Protein backbone atom coordinates (compact mmCIF):
# COMPACT_ATOMS: atom_id res chain seq x y z
CA UNK A 1 0.00 0.00 0.00
CA UNK A 2 1.66 3.14 -1.19
CA UNK A 3 -0.31 5.50 1.02
CA UNK A 4 0.31 4.07 4.45
CA UNK A 5 2.26 5.91 7.13
CA UNK A 6 5.64 4.57 5.98
CA UNK A 7 5.23 4.56 2.23
CA UNK A 8 3.76 8.07 2.27
CA UNK A 9 7.09 9.32 3.60
CA UNK A 10 9.27 10.85 0.90
CA UNK A 11 12.75 9.35 0.52
CA UNK A 12 15.32 11.16 2.65
CA UNK A 13 18.96 10.49 1.72
CA UNK A 14 20.05 11.76 5.14
CA UNK A 15 18.65 8.63 6.80
CA UNK A 16 21.19 5.85 7.38
CA UNK A 17 20.71 2.29 8.56
CA UNK A 18 21.42 3.57 12.10
CA UNK A 19 18.45 5.88 11.86
CA UNK A 20 16.29 3.05 10.56
CA UNK A 21 17.50 0.81 13.39
CA UNK A 22 16.39 3.49 15.84
CA UNK A 23 13.01 3.76 14.13
CA UNK A 24 12.57 -0.02 14.28
CA UNK A 25 13.38 -0.28 17.98
CA UNK A 26 11.41 2.83 18.90
CA UNK A 27 8.39 1.55 17.02
CA UNK A 28 8.59 -1.76 18.87
CA UNK A 29 8.65 0.18 22.11
CA UNK A 30 5.77 2.44 21.12
CA UNK A 31 3.65 -0.43 19.80
CA UNK A 32 4.14 -2.43 23.00
CA UNK A 33 4.18 0.23 25.69
CA UNK A 34 2.02 3.08 24.36
CA UNK A 35 -0.30 2.16 21.47
CA UNK A 36 -2.44 -0.40 23.37
CA UNK A 37 -3.12 2.08 26.19
CA UNK A 38 -3.03 5.47 24.49
CA UNK A 39 -6.76 5.86 24.04
CA UNK A 40 -7.41 4.78 27.61
CA UNK A 41 -4.85 7.31 28.90
CA UNK A 42 -6.40 10.01 26.75
CA UNK A 43 -9.86 9.32 28.15
CA UNK A 44 -8.48 9.13 31.68
CA UNK A 45 -6.65 12.43 31.24
CA UNK A 46 -3.25 11.25 32.42
CA UNK A 47 -0.35 8.93 31.69
CA UNK A 48 0.94 6.42 34.26
CA UNK A 49 4.11 7.73 35.83
CA UNK A 50 5.83 4.38 35.07
CA UNK A 51 6.03 5.27 31.38
CA UNK A 52 8.87 7.76 31.92
CA UNK A 53 11.50 5.32 33.24
CA UNK A 54 10.59 2.91 30.42
CA UNK A 55 11.05 5.69 27.87
CA UNK A 56 14.37 6.50 29.50
CA UNK A 57 15.53 2.88 29.19
CA UNK A 58 14.96 2.81 25.44
CA UNK A 59 16.92 6.05 25.07
CA UNK A 60 13.97 8.27 24.24
CA UNK A 61 14.40 10.77 27.07
CA UNK A 62 18.17 11.04 26.92
CA UNK A 63 18.47 11.56 23.19
CA UNK A 64 20.44 14.68 22.37
CA UNK A 65 21.61 15.33 25.96
CA UNK A 66 25.17 14.93 27.27
CA UNK A 67 26.37 11.46 28.28
CA UNK A 68 27.56 12.74 31.65
CA UNK A 69 23.94 13.30 32.66
CA UNK A 70 22.73 9.98 31.29
CA UNK A 71 21.96 11.18 27.80
CA UNK A 72 23.37 10.28 24.43
CA UNK A 73 24.77 12.82 21.97
CA UNK A 74 27.54 11.05 20.07
CA UNK A 75 26.30 10.43 16.53
CA UNK A 76 22.83 11.81 17.30
CA UNK A 77 21.45 14.33 14.85
CA UNK A 78 18.23 16.03 13.75
CA UNK A 79 17.13 12.93 11.84
CA UNK A 80 16.93 10.95 15.07
CA UNK A 81 14.68 13.69 16.44
CA UNK A 82 12.47 13.65 13.37
CA UNK A 83 12.03 9.90 13.81
CA UNK A 84 10.99 10.36 17.45
CA UNK A 85 8.43 13.00 16.51
CA UNK A 86 7.04 10.81 13.75
CA UNK A 87 6.85 7.63 15.76
CA UNK A 88 5.17 9.28 18.75
CA UNK A 89 2.74 11.04 16.42
CA UNK A 90 1.83 7.72 14.82
CA UNK A 91 0.04 6.79 18.04
CA UNK A 92 -2.45 9.54 17.26
CA UNK A 93 -2.73 10.74 20.85
CA UNK A 94 -1.05 14.12 20.95
CA UNK A 95 -1.27 14.48 24.71
CA UNK A 96 0.95 11.43 25.22
CA UNK A 97 3.78 12.76 23.09
CA UNK A 98 3.43 16.28 24.48
CA UNK A 99 3.50 15.19 28.08
CA UNK A 100 6.04 12.38 27.78
CA UNK A 101 8.56 14.57 25.98
CA UNK A 102 7.90 17.89 27.71
CA UNK A 103 11.41 17.85 29.18
CA UNK A 104 12.37 18.61 25.56
CA UNK A 105 11.33 22.21 26.21
CA UNK A 106 11.87 22.35 29.98
CA UNK A 107 15.40 20.96 30.19
CA UNK A 108 17.33 22.70 27.36
CA UNK A 109 17.42 26.07 29.17
CA UNK A 110 19.12 24.28 32.10
CA UNK A 111 21.48 22.28 29.87
CA UNK A 112 22.41 25.20 27.61
CA UNK A 113 22.51 28.08 30.10
CA UNK A 114 22.38 26.63 33.62
CA UNK A 115 25.19 26.31 36.15
CA UNK A 116 27.16 23.05 36.46
CA UNK A 117 25.59 22.41 39.83
CA UNK A 118 22.10 22.94 38.46
CA UNK A 119 22.73 20.58 35.54
CA UNK A 120 24.17 17.89 37.78
CA UNK A 121 21.18 18.07 40.11
CA UNK A 122 18.38 18.28 37.56
CA UNK A 123 19.44 16.55 34.34
CA UNK A 124 20.22 12.98 35.53
CA UNK A 125 16.89 12.28 37.28
CA UNK A 126 14.91 13.95 34.49
CA UNK A 127 16.68 11.93 31.79
CA UNK A 128 16.16 8.77 33.88
CA UNK A 129 12.45 9.53 33.94
CA UNK A 130 12.21 9.58 37.71
CA UNK A 131 11.78 13.35 38.09
CA UNK A 132 10.11 15.88 35.85
CA UNK A 133 10.66 19.34 34.48
CA UNK A 134 8.34 21.72 32.65
CA UNK A 135 8.66 25.07 30.93
CA UNK A 136 6.70 28.05 32.27
CA UNK A 137 6.34 30.97 29.87
CA UNK A 138 2.67 31.71 29.11
CA UNK A 139 0.65 33.66 31.68
CA UNK A 140 -3.08 34.11 32.22
CA UNK A 141 -2.64 37.74 31.17
CA UNK A 142 -0.84 36.98 27.93
CA UNK A 143 0.96 34.30 25.97
CA UNK A 144 2.41 35.33 22.64
CA UNK A 145 3.70 38.67 23.87
CA UNK A 146 6.52 37.13 25.87
CA UNK A 147 8.30 40.45 26.38
CA UNK A 148 5.39 41.74 28.47
CA UNK A 149 5.20 38.89 30.96
CA UNK A 150 4.20 39.90 34.48
CA UNK A 151 5.43 37.25 36.88
CA UNK A 152 7.81 39.22 39.10
CA UNK A 153 10.99 37.94 40.73
CA UNK A 154 12.40 40.49 43.18
CA UNK A 155 15.92 39.96 44.43
CA UNK A 156 16.08 39.75 48.25
CA UNK A 157 19.54 38.81 49.53
CA UNK A 158 20.41 35.33 48.23
CA UNK A 159 16.92 34.73 46.98
CA UNK A 160 14.37 35.83 44.44
CA UNK A 161 10.84 36.36 45.71
CA UNK A 162 8.48 35.24 42.94
CA UNK A 163 4.87 36.36 42.54
CA UNK A 164 2.58 35.69 39.62
CA UNK A 165 1.07 32.88 37.63
CA UNK A 166 1.70 30.71 34.58
CA UNK A 167 -0.88 28.81 32.57
CA UNK A 168 -1.21 26.17 29.82
CA UNK A 169 1.91 24.56 31.30
CA UNK A 170 2.30 21.09 29.77
CA UNK A 171 3.52 18.58 32.35
CA UNK A 172 2.87 21.20 35.01
CA UNK A 173 1.00 18.94 37.41
CA UNK A 174 3.84 16.48 37.91
CA UNK A 175 6.83 18.80 37.39
CA UNK A 176 9.47 18.83 40.14
CA UNK A 177 11.02 21.89 38.55
CA UNK A 178 9.74 24.58 36.22
CA UNK A 179 12.09 26.57 33.99
CA UNK A 180 10.18 29.78 34.46
CA UNK A 181 10.27 33.12 32.67
CA UNK A 182 10.11 35.93 35.23
CA UNK A 183 10.53 39.70 35.26
CA UNK A 184 13.65 40.71 37.16
CA UNK A 185 14.17 44.07 35.52
CA UNK A 186 12.27 46.84 33.78
CA UNK A 187 9.52 46.51 31.18
CA UNK A 188 10.01 44.73 27.87
CA UNK A 189 12.28 41.93 26.73
CA UNK A 190 15.29 43.38 28.52
CA UNK A 191 13.80 42.74 31.95
CA UNK A 192 13.12 39.02 31.54
CA UNK A 193 15.13 36.27 33.24
CA UNK A 194 14.83 32.48 33.39
CA UNK A 195 14.60 30.95 36.85
CA UNK A 196 14.57 27.27 37.78
CA UNK A 197 11.78 27.00 40.34
CA UNK A 198 11.48 23.78 42.40
CA UNK A 199 7.80 22.99 42.92
CA UNK A 200 8.22 21.86 46.51
CA UNK A 201 8.89 25.41 47.71
CA UNK A 202 6.44 27.19 49.99
CA UNK A 203 4.05 29.44 48.15
CA UNK A 204 3.93 27.30 45.01
CA UNK A 205 0.58 25.77 44.04
CA UNK A 206 -1.04 24.42 40.90
CA UNK A 207 -4.36 23.31 39.44
CA UNK A 208 -5.01 20.97 36.55
CA UNK A 209 -6.53 22.45 33.40
CA UNK A 210 -8.98 19.73 32.55
CA UNK A 211 -11.73 19.78 29.93
CA UNK A 212 -9.37 20.84 27.16
CA UNK A 213 -10.32 20.40 23.49
CA UNK A 214 -7.31 18.17 22.87
CA UNK A 215 -4.18 16.77 24.53
CA UNK A 216 -6.42 15.14 27.12
CA UNK A 217 -3.62 12.85 28.31
CA UNK A 218 -1.43 15.83 29.15
CA UNK A 219 -1.37 17.07 32.74
CA UNK A 220 -1.54 20.70 31.69
CA UNK A 221 -1.66 23.09 34.61
CA UNK A 222 -1.96 26.61 35.88
CA UNK A 223 0.85 27.44 38.30
CA UNK A 224 0.66 30.01 41.09
CA UNK A 225 3.59 31.71 42.78
CA UNK A 226 2.77 33.42 46.05
CA UNK A 227 5.93 34.87 47.60
CA UNK A 228 7.92 31.80 46.52
CA UNK A 229 11.50 32.24 47.74
CA UNK A 230 13.86 30.77 45.12
CA UNK A 231 17.64 30.62 45.72
CA UNK A 232 19.45 33.14 43.52
CA UNK A 233 21.71 30.29 42.36
CA UNK A 234 18.68 28.98 40.44
CA UNK A 235 19.00 31.77 37.89
CA UNK A 236 19.35 30.20 34.41
CA UNK A 237 21.86 32.21 32.41
CA UNK A 238 22.40 35.91 32.95
CA UNK A 239 19.91 38.17 34.73
CA UNK A 240 17.68 40.09 32.33
CA UNK A 241 18.93 38.06 29.36
CA UNK A 242 16.22 35.43 29.63
CA UNK A 243 14.45 36.54 26.47
CA UNK A 244 17.28 35.12 24.38
CA UNK A 245 17.05 31.78 26.22
CA UNK A 246 13.33 31.63 25.48
CA UNK A 247 13.71 32.48 21.81
CA UNK A 248 16.49 29.91 21.26
CA UNK A 249 14.33 27.29 22.85
CA UNK A 250 11.41 28.04 20.56
CA UNK A 251 13.24 27.05 17.38
CA UNK A 252 13.77 23.43 18.38
CA UNK A 253 10.28 23.25 19.88
CA UNK A 254 8.81 24.45 16.58
CA UNK A 255 10.84 21.96 14.55
CA UNK A 256 9.57 19.21 16.82
CA UNK A 257 5.98 20.36 16.58
CA UNK A 258 6.16 20.78 12.80
CA UNK A 259 7.52 17.29 12.23
CA UNK A 260 4.93 15.82 14.60
CA UNK A 261 2.12 17.71 12.84
CA UNK A 262 3.15 16.41 9.44
CA UNK A 263 3.17 12.88 10.82
CA UNK A 264 -0.26 13.40 12.38
CA UNK A 265 -1.49 14.54 8.97
CA UNK A 266 0.01 11.38 7.51
CA UNK A 267 -1.88 9.28 10.03
CA UNK A 268 -5.07 10.96 8.80
CA UNK A 269 -4.12 10.09 5.23
CA UNK A 270 -3.46 6.48 6.19
CA UNK A 271 -6.78 6.11 8.00
CA UNK A 272 -8.71 7.83 5.19
CA UNK A 273 -7.15 5.54 2.58
CA UNK A 274 -7.86 2.35 4.53
CA UNK A 275 -11.49 3.37 4.95
CA UNK A 276 -11.88 4.59 1.34
CA UNK A 277 -10.64 1.25 0.06
CA UNK A 278 -12.91 -0.72 2.33
CA UNK A 279 -16.15 1.22 2.29
CA UNK A 280 -18.63 0.79 -0.57
CA UNK A 281 -21.17 3.44 -1.57
CA UNK A 282 -23.32 3.77 -4.68
CA UNK A 283 -22.05 0.42 -5.93
CA UNK A 284 -18.34 1.12 -5.75
CA UNK A 285 -15.52 1.75 -3.29
CA UNK A 286 -15.29 5.20 -1.75
CA UNK A 287 -11.79 5.27 -3.24
CA UNK A 288 -13.31 5.00 -6.72
CA UNK A 289 -15.30 8.20 -6.38
CA UNK A 290 -13.44 11.08 -7.96
CA UNK A 291 -14.38 13.46 -5.16
CA UNK A 292 -12.71 11.16 -2.62
CA UNK A 293 -9.69 10.44 -4.81
CA UNK A 294 -9.05 14.16 -5.05
CA UNK A 295 -9.19 14.53 -1.29
CA UNK A 296 -6.55 11.82 -0.92
CA UNK A 297 -4.39 13.41 -3.60
CA UNK A 298 -4.63 16.85 -2.00
CA UNK A 299 -3.67 15.44 1.39
CA UNK A 300 -0.65 13.68 -0.07
CA UNK A 301 0.34 16.77 -2.03
CA UNK A 302 0.39 18.94 1.09
CA UNK A 303 2.15 16.27 3.14
CA UNK A 304 4.82 15.97 0.44
CA UNK A 305 5.41 19.71 0.49
CA UNK A 306 5.58 19.82 4.27
CA UNK A 307 8.00 16.89 4.43
CA UNK A 308 10.30 18.54 1.91
CA UNK A 309 10.17 21.80 3.89
CA UNK A 310 10.90 19.98 7.16
CA UNK A 311 13.87 18.29 5.54
CA UNK A 312 15.18 21.61 4.23
CA UNK A 313 14.94 23.14 7.72
CA UNK A 314 16.54 20.16 9.44
CA UNK A 315 19.36 20.24 6.88
CA UNK A 316 19.85 23.91 7.76
CA UNK A 317 19.82 23.07 11.48
CA UNK A 318 22.48 20.41 10.84
CA UNK A 319 24.53 22.90 8.83
CA UNK A 320 24.16 25.55 11.53
CA UNK A 321 22.38 27.90 9.14
CA UNK A 322 18.81 27.62 10.40
CA UNK A 323 16.66 30.68 9.79
CA UNK A 324 14.08 31.31 12.57
CA UNK A 325 11.76 32.87 10.00
CA UNK A 326 11.80 29.73 7.88
CA UNK A 327 11.17 27.62 10.98
CA UNK A 328 8.29 29.87 12.03
CA UNK A 329 6.64 29.51 8.64
CA UNK A 330 7.31 25.77 8.64
CA UNK A 331 5.23 25.59 11.78
CA UNK A 332 2.41 27.37 9.96
CA UNK A 333 2.82 25.11 6.93
CA UNK A 334 2.61 22.06 9.19
CA UNK A 335 -0.42 23.18 11.21
CA UNK A 336 -2.31 24.11 8.04
CA UNK A 337 -1.44 20.73 6.54
CA UNK A 338 -2.48 18.90 9.69
CA UNK A 339 -5.72 20.87 9.81
CA UNK A 340 -6.45 20.11 6.16
CA UNK A 341 -5.69 16.40 6.51
CA UNK A 342 -7.72 16.07 9.70
CA UNK A 343 -10.67 17.80 8.04
CA UNK A 344 -10.52 15.79 4.82
CA UNK A 345 -9.93 12.48 6.58
CA UNK A 346 -12.91 13.19 8.80
CA UNK A 347 -15.04 13.88 5.69
CA UNK A 348 -13.89 10.58 4.16
CA UNK A 349 -14.59 8.64 7.35
CA UNK A 350 -17.96 10.30 7.80
CA UNK A 351 -20.01 9.23 10.79
CA UNK A 352 -17.48 6.58 11.81
CA UNK A 353 -14.78 9.20 12.14
CA UNK A 354 -16.99 11.32 14.33
CA UNK A 355 -17.23 8.60 16.96
CA UNK A 356 -14.65 8.62 19.76
CA UNK A 357 -11.98 5.90 19.73
CA UNK A 358 -10.22 6.46 16.41
CA UNK A 359 -7.04 8.31 15.53
CA UNK A 360 -8.63 10.80 13.13
CA UNK A 361 -11.16 11.97 15.70
CA UNK A 362 -8.40 12.48 18.25
CA UNK A 363 -6.12 14.25 15.79
CA UNK A 364 -9.01 16.46 14.64
CA UNK A 365 -9.40 17.91 18.12
CA UNK A 366 -5.63 18.32 18.49
CA UNK A 367 -5.29 20.65 15.53
CA UNK A 368 -5.81 23.85 17.47
CA UNK A 369 -3.33 23.18 20.27
CA UNK A 370 -0.72 22.71 17.57
CA UNK A 371 -1.79 25.76 15.59
CA UNK A 372 -1.70 27.95 18.73
CA UNK A 373 0.86 26.41 21.13
CA UNK A 374 4.58 27.00 20.63
CA UNK A 375 3.75 30.22 18.72
CA UNK A 376 0.40 30.84 17.05
CA UNK A 377 0.12 30.94 13.28
CA UNK A 378 -0.40 34.70 13.45
CA UNK A 379 2.68 35.27 15.59
CA UNK A 380 4.70 32.95 13.35
CA UNK A 381 3.88 34.93 10.22
CA UNK A 382 4.67 38.18 11.99
CA UNK A 383 7.96 36.80 13.29
CA UNK A 384 8.90 35.57 9.83
CA UNK A 385 8.28 38.88 8.10
CA UNK A 386 10.41 40.60 10.71
CA UNK A 387 13.15 38.00 10.25
CA UNK A 388 13.01 38.57 6.51
CA UNK A 389 13.51 42.31 7.10
CA UNK A 390 10.14 43.45 5.73
Amino acid at each position, binding site marked *: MALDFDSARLPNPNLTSDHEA*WRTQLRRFVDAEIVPFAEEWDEAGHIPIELWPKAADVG*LLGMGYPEEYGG*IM*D*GIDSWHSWIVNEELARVGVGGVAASLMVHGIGLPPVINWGTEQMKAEVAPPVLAGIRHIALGITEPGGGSDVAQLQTIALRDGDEYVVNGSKTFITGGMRANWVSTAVRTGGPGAGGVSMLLIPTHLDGFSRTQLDRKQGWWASDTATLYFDNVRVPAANLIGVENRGFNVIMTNFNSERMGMASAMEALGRVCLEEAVVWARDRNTFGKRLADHQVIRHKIAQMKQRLNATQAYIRACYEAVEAGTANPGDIALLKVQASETMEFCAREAMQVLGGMGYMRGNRVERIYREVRVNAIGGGSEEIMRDLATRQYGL
Partner: protein
Amino acid sequence: MKVLVAVKRVADANVKVRAKADGTDVDLNNVKMAINPFCEIAVEEAVRLKESGVAEEVVAVSIGDKSCQEQIRTSLALGADRGIQVETDANLQPLAIAKLLKAVIDRESPDLIILGKQSIDSDNNQTGQMLAALAGLAQGTFASEVVLEDGHARVTREVDGGLQTLNLKLPAVVTTDLRLNEPRYASLPNIMKAKKKPMDVLTPEELGVDVASKLTMVKVEPPAERSAGIIVESVEQLVDKLKNEAKVIS
Protein backbone atom coordinates in the same frame (compact mmCIF):
# COMPACT_ATOMS: atom_id res chain seq x y z
CA MET B 1 31.65 -20.10 27.59
CA LYS B 2 30.86 -18.88 24.13
CA VAL B 3 27.41 -18.72 22.55
CA LEU B 4 26.91 -18.44 18.83
CA VAL B 5 23.59 -17.21 17.46
CA ALA B 6 22.47 -17.28 13.86
CA VAL B 7 20.29 -14.44 12.61
CA LYS B 8 18.42 -14.16 9.35
CA ARG B 9 17.30 -11.07 7.45
CA VAL B 10 13.65 -11.41 6.48
CA ALA B 11 10.76 -9.16 5.44
CA ASP B 12 9.39 -7.40 8.51
CA ALA B 13 6.59 -9.35 10.15
CA ASN B 14 4.22 -6.38 9.78
CA VAL B 15 4.74 -6.11 6.03
CA LYS B 16 2.21 -7.67 3.69
CA VAL B 17 4.38 -9.35 1.08
CA ARG B 18 3.37 -9.79 -2.54
CA ALA B 19 4.40 -12.24 -5.21
CA LYS B 20 6.25 -10.81 -8.20
CA ALA B 21 4.03 -10.42 -11.24
CA ASP B 22 5.99 -13.08 -13.16
CA GLY B 23 5.67 -15.55 -10.27
CA THR B 24 9.42 -16.08 -9.91
CA ASP B 25 9.67 -15.02 -6.27
CA VAL B 26 8.35 -12.78 -3.51
CA ASP B 27 8.74 -9.09 -4.33
CA LEU B 28 11.14 -7.65 -1.76
CA ASN B 29 11.68 -4.37 -3.58
CA ASN B 30 11.38 -1.48 -1.08
CA VAL B 31 10.11 -3.85 1.58
CA LYS B 32 11.12 -3.13 5.17
CA MET B 33 13.46 -5.87 6.33
CA ALA B 34 14.07 -7.03 9.87
CA ILE B 35 15.68 -9.70 11.96
CA ASN B 36 13.62 -12.93 11.89
CA PRO B 37 11.53 -12.90 15.11
CA PHE B 38 12.68 -16.39 16.19
CA CYS B 39 16.29 -15.33 15.62
CA GLU B 40 15.65 -12.28 17.79
CA ILE B 41 14.51 -14.63 20.54
CA ALA B 42 17.77 -16.56 20.04
CA VAL B 43 19.81 -13.37 20.45
CA GLU B 44 17.84 -12.43 23.56
CA GLU B 45 18.45 -15.86 25.12
CA ALA B 46 22.18 -15.63 24.43
CA VAL B 47 22.38 -12.11 25.85
CA ARG B 48 20.53 -13.23 28.98
CA LEU B 49 23.03 -16.07 29.41
CA LYS B 50 25.78 -13.49 29.23
CA GLU B 51 24.06 -11.12 31.65
CA SER B 52 23.54 -13.92 34.15
CA GLY B 53 27.26 -14.70 34.01
CA VAL B 54 26.86 -18.11 32.38
CA ALA B 55 28.29 -17.02 29.03
CA GLU B 56 31.30 -14.79 28.41
CA GLU B 57 30.85 -14.04 24.74
CA VAL B 58 27.97 -13.88 22.30
CA VAL B 59 28.76 -14.04 18.59
CA ALA B 60 26.05 -13.23 16.04
CA VAL B 61 26.33 -14.75 12.56
CA SER B 62 24.35 -13.91 9.47
CA ILE B 63 24.69 -15.16 5.93
CA GLY B 64 23.80 -13.16 2.85
CA ASP B 65 24.68 -10.05 0.90
CA LYS B 66 25.99 -6.89 2.54
CA SER B 67 22.53 -5.82 3.69
CA CYS B 68 22.39 -8.59 6.31
CA GLN B 69 25.00 -6.60 8.24
CA GLU B 70 22.03 -4.52 9.41
CA GLN B 71 20.62 -7.53 11.24
CA ILE B 72 24.03 -8.30 12.72
CA ARG B 73 24.19 -4.69 13.94
CA THR B 74 20.77 -5.10 15.48
CA SER B 75 22.02 -8.21 17.28
CA LEU B 76 25.02 -6.24 18.51
CA ALA B 77 22.68 -3.47 19.69
CA LEU B 78 20.68 -6.08 21.58
CA GLY B 79 23.84 -7.17 23.39
CA ALA B 80 25.91 -9.54 21.22
CA ASP B 81 29.66 -8.88 21.45
CA ARG B 82 30.79 -9.33 17.87
CA GLY B 83 29.45 -10.27 14.48
CA ILE B 84 30.38 -12.51 11.60
CA GLN B 85 28.92 -12.06 8.16
CA VAL B 86 29.34 -14.79 5.58
CA GLU B 87 28.99 -12.75 2.45
CA THR B 88 27.30 -14.27 -0.57
CA ASP B 89 24.73 -13.17 -3.12
CA ALA B 90 23.67 -16.76 -3.75
CA ASN B 91 20.10 -17.86 -3.12
CA LEU B 92 20.70 -20.17 -0.18
CA GLN B 93 18.74 -23.18 0.97
CA PRO B 94 18.80 -24.58 4.53
CA LEU B 95 21.42 -27.21 3.74
CA ALA B 96 23.88 -24.63 2.42
CA ILE B 97 23.22 -22.43 5.46
CA ALA B 98 23.79 -25.39 7.76
CA LYS B 99 27.08 -26.22 6.03
CA LEU B 100 28.26 -22.63 6.30
CA LEU B 101 27.29 -22.46 9.98
CA LYS B 102 29.09 -25.76 10.55
CA ALA B 103 32.22 -24.22 9.04
CA VAL B 104 31.85 -21.16 11.28
CA ILE B 105 31.43 -23.44 14.31
CA ASP B 106 34.64 -25.27 13.37
CA ARG B 107 36.47 -21.94 13.51
CA GLU B 108 34.73 -20.53 16.58
CA SER B 109 34.18 -23.63 18.75
CA PRO B 110 31.14 -22.28 20.62
CA ASP B 111 29.71 -24.20 23.56
CA LEU B 112 26.14 -23.45 22.59
CA ILE B 113 24.58 -22.60 19.24
CA ILE B 114 21.14 -20.98 19.31
CA LEU B 115 18.99 -20.55 16.21
CA GLY B 116 15.41 -19.63 15.54
CA LYS B 117 13.26 -22.71 14.99
CA GLN B 118 12.37 -21.36 11.55
CA SER B 119 12.28 -18.12 9.61
CA ILE B 120 9.03 -16.37 8.90
CA ASP B 121 9.73 -16.06 5.19
CA SER B 122 10.45 -19.61 3.99
CA ASP B 123 9.19 -21.48 7.09
CA ASN B 124 11.55 -24.40 6.42
CA ASN B 125 12.31 -25.40 10.00
CA GLN B 126 15.39 -27.33 8.87
CA THR B 127 18.57 -25.37 9.46
CA GLY B 128 19.03 -26.12 13.16
CA GLN B 129 18.39 -29.82 12.72
CA MET B 130 20.70 -30.07 9.70
CA LEU B 131 23.42 -28.16 11.51
CA ALA B 132 23.25 -30.48 14.52
CA ALA B 133 23.48 -33.51 12.25
CA LEU B 134 26.39 -32.14 10.20
CA ALA B 135 28.30 -31.10 13.30
CA GLY B 136 27.49 -34.26 15.22
CA LEU B 137 26.01 -32.24 18.10
CA ALA B 138 23.04 -32.85 20.34
CA GLN B 139 19.96 -30.83 19.45
CA GLY B 140 17.05 -29.37 21.38
CA THR B 141 14.49 -27.85 19.04
CA PHE B 142 11.41 -25.70 19.80
CA ALA B 143 12.87 -24.67 23.14
CA SER B 144 10.66 -22.84 25.62
CA GLU B 145 13.24 -22.98 28.39
CA VAL B 146 17.00 -23.43 28.45
CA VAL B 147 18.97 -24.00 31.65
CA LEU B 148 22.72 -24.50 31.55
CA GLU B 149 24.50 -26.42 34.30
CA ASP B 150 27.52 -28.71 34.64
CA GLY B 151 28.36 -28.86 30.96
CA HIS B 152 24.79 -29.69 30.03
CA ALA B 153 21.83 -27.82 28.65
CA ARG B 154 18.43 -28.74 30.04
CA VAL B 155 16.06 -27.82 27.24
CA THR B 156 12.29 -27.80 27.60
CA ARG B 157 10.71 -28.44 24.22
CA GLU B 158 7.23 -27.59 23.06
CA VAL B 159 5.96 -30.79 21.44
CA ASP B 160 2.49 -31.76 20.26
CA GLY B 161 1.54 -33.57 23.43
CA GLY B 162 2.91 -30.98 25.88
CA LEU B 163 6.41 -30.28 27.14
CA GLN B 164 9.41 -32.55 26.80
CA THR B 165 12.63 -31.96 28.72
CA LEU B 166 15.96 -33.07 27.30
CA ASN B 167 19.37 -33.02 28.88
CA LEU B 168 21.93 -32.20 26.19
CA LYS B 169 25.66 -32.53 26.49
CA LEU B 170 27.43 -29.36 25.41
CA PRO B 171 28.28 -28.24 22.84
CA ALA B 172 24.74 -28.42 21.53
CA VAL B 173 22.31 -26.84 19.10
CA VAL B 174 19.13 -25.23 20.42
CA THR B 175 16.32 -23.76 18.33
CA THR B 176 13.94 -21.27 19.86
CA ASP B 177 10.18 -21.32 20.09
CA LEU B 178 7.98 -18.30 20.65
CA ARG B 179 7.67 -18.59 24.42
CA LEU B 180 11.36 -18.90 25.25
CA ASN B 181 11.59 -15.20 26.11
CA GLU B 182 10.36 -11.77 25.15
CA PRO B 183 13.13 -9.88 23.35
CA ARG B 184 14.07 -6.47 24.69
CA TYR B 185 14.22 -3.23 22.73
CA ALA B 186 17.66 -2.10 21.72
CA SER B 187 18.14 1.29 23.34
CA LEU B 188 19.43 4.25 21.36
CA PRO B 189 22.78 4.28 23.23
CA ASN B 190 23.23 0.58 22.46
CA ILE B 191 22.36 1.12 18.79
CA MET B 192 25.09 3.76 18.65
CA LYS B 193 27.61 1.58 20.54
CA ALA B 194 26.90 -1.36 18.23
CA LYS B 195 28.55 0.55 15.40
CA LYS B 196 31.88 0.19 17.17
CA LYS B 197 31.67 -3.54 17.85
CA PRO B 198 33.79 -5.79 15.61
CA MET B 199 32.33 -7.55 12.60
CA ASP B 200 34.27 -10.04 10.49
CA VAL B 201 33.33 -10.81 6.93
CA LEU B 202 33.98 -14.31 5.57
CA THR B 203 33.10 -15.92 2.25
CA PRO B 204 31.82 -19.40 1.41
CA GLU B 205 35.09 -19.95 -0.49
CA GLU B 206 37.16 -19.17 2.62
CA LEU B 207 35.01 -21.60 4.54
CA GLY B 208 35.34 -24.21 1.79
CA VAL B 209 31.61 -24.65 1.34
CA ASP B 210 29.82 -25.19 -1.96
CA VAL B 211 26.56 -23.28 -1.67
CA ALA B 212 25.05 -24.29 -5.02
CA SER B 213 21.39 -25.07 -4.51
CA LYS B 214 20.00 -28.49 -5.32
CA LEU B 215 16.48 -27.08 -5.34
CA THR B 216 14.73 -25.00 -7.94
CA MET B 217 11.87 -22.66 -7.09
CA VAL B 218 9.11 -23.43 -9.55
CA LYS B 219 6.56 -20.75 -8.87
CA VAL B 220 5.38 -18.24 -6.27
CA GLU B 221 1.75 -17.26 -6.29
CA PRO B 222 -0.42 -15.38 -3.80
CA PRO B 223 -3.07 -17.30 -1.87
CA ALA B 224 -6.49 -17.30 -3.49
CA GLU B 225 -8.47 -14.24 -2.50
CA ARG B 226 -11.36 -14.88 -0.22
CA SER B 227 -14.63 -14.27 -1.98
CA ALA B 228 -17.50 -12.43 -0.34
CA GLY B 229 -19.69 -14.36 2.09
CA ILE B 230 -23.46 -14.47 2.26
CA ILE B 231 -25.91 -14.03 5.09
CA VAL B 232 -28.11 -17.11 5.45
CA GLU B 233 -31.81 -16.73 6.18
CA SER B 234 -32.20 -19.54 8.70
CA VAL B 235 -30.50 -22.31 10.60
CA GLU B 236 -32.02 -24.81 8.20
CA GLN B 237 -30.43 -23.02 5.26
CA LEU B 238 -27.08 -22.95 7.06
CA VAL B 239 -27.21 -26.67 7.79
CA ASP B 240 -28.26 -27.34 4.21
CA LYS B 241 -25.32 -25.37 2.83
CA LEU B 242 -22.82 -26.95 5.19
CA LYS B 243 -24.11 -30.35 4.20
CA ASN B 244 -24.62 -30.01 0.46
CA GLU B 245 -22.39 -27.14 -0.68
CA ALA B 246 -19.43 -27.08 1.68
CA LYS B 247 -19.84 -30.80 2.43
CA VAL B 248 -18.26 -30.35 5.86
CA ILE B 249 -21.01 -32.18 7.71
CA SER B 250 -23.05 -35.16 6.71
